[in-house]
């Protein structure tokens, strides 16, 4: 698929859980995650986010995150990757689910973004 989804959370179980949830409605959308730190602690890590970008088979990525410092690490990762990544300041679970469900049925990206607009919380 052209578009993929990346989930960034401070906690690996949250990232895994969101992935599990959205795969139910979007089995063909590539979803990769960066959750927690390497040693399992709570936090976000730029290297792990870059890895999630690379591991995603899509070249254009929609990135969703939980709290502020995840956004800062995401922005740095975006500055360092060759992929086209856009991050959304939206409610993590709802917006990742919405985006994936719409991408699964090949909705145009402009229409996906229009739906996401209502979910902006940050």
């Amino acid at each position, binding site marked *: 698929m052209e578009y993929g989804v990346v989930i960034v959370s401070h906690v690996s179980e949250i990232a895994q859980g969101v992935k599990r949830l959205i795969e139910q409605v979007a089995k063909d959308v590539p979803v990769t995650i960066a959750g927690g*730190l390497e040693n399992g*602690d*709570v*936090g*976000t*890590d*730029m*290297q792990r986010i870059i890895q999630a970008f690379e591991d995603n088979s899509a070249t254009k990525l929609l990135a969703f995150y939980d*709290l*502020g*410092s995840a956004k*800062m*690490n995401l*922005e*740095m990762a975006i500055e360092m990757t060759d992929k086209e990544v856009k991050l959304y300041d939206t409610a993590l679970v709802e917006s990742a689910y919405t985006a994936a469900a719409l991408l699964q049925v090949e909705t145009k990206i402009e229409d996906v973004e229009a739906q996401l607009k209502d979910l902006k919380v940050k």
Partner: protein
Amino acid sequence: MLDVENVKKWMTKFNEQIQAHHDYLSELDTPIGDGDHGNNMARGMNAVMEAIADKDFTDVPAIFKTIAMSLISKVGGASGPLYGTAFMEMAKVGDGEVSALLPAALAGIKKRGKAETGEKTMVDVWAPIAEKTDFTADDVDKAVEATKDMIATKGRASYVGERSVGHIDPGAMSSGYLLKALLEVEE
């Protein structure tokens, strides 16, 4: 004008402060954040010291870049990208001229955190100091202390809003240690 040895000394002094006060920094972070600032900074500075001690650097930008990467990859919380960006921007200055380094660091922190002054963050310490041509330890202490009465509107502390009043911002405190460590090097 700082040289590579000055920067090493700066980081050594800063590291001493971080390791000595890491419980206090986490304590400051507990009522208004997630209680990990001290541990995060201690972990990050251990990585920095490991990366720079006994190593040769061609120039000041080279050592700043190494410091930045260690902080970005090892701190874990918001301070990693913020301090990391500060050192990355200082690397871009091209030399060790303090009057240019501090404004560059401040601009980097503001850009990365999208923060302005008065939001109870480390910007409230960096901004008044970076604007001065000369600063004293007392200036730093006052700037740190001033965050106590502010209401947090940025970062994790903003979730507790008005309840953040009465607590020193932990990022402001650690920034205070960094800037005072610089004074010790310059003396």
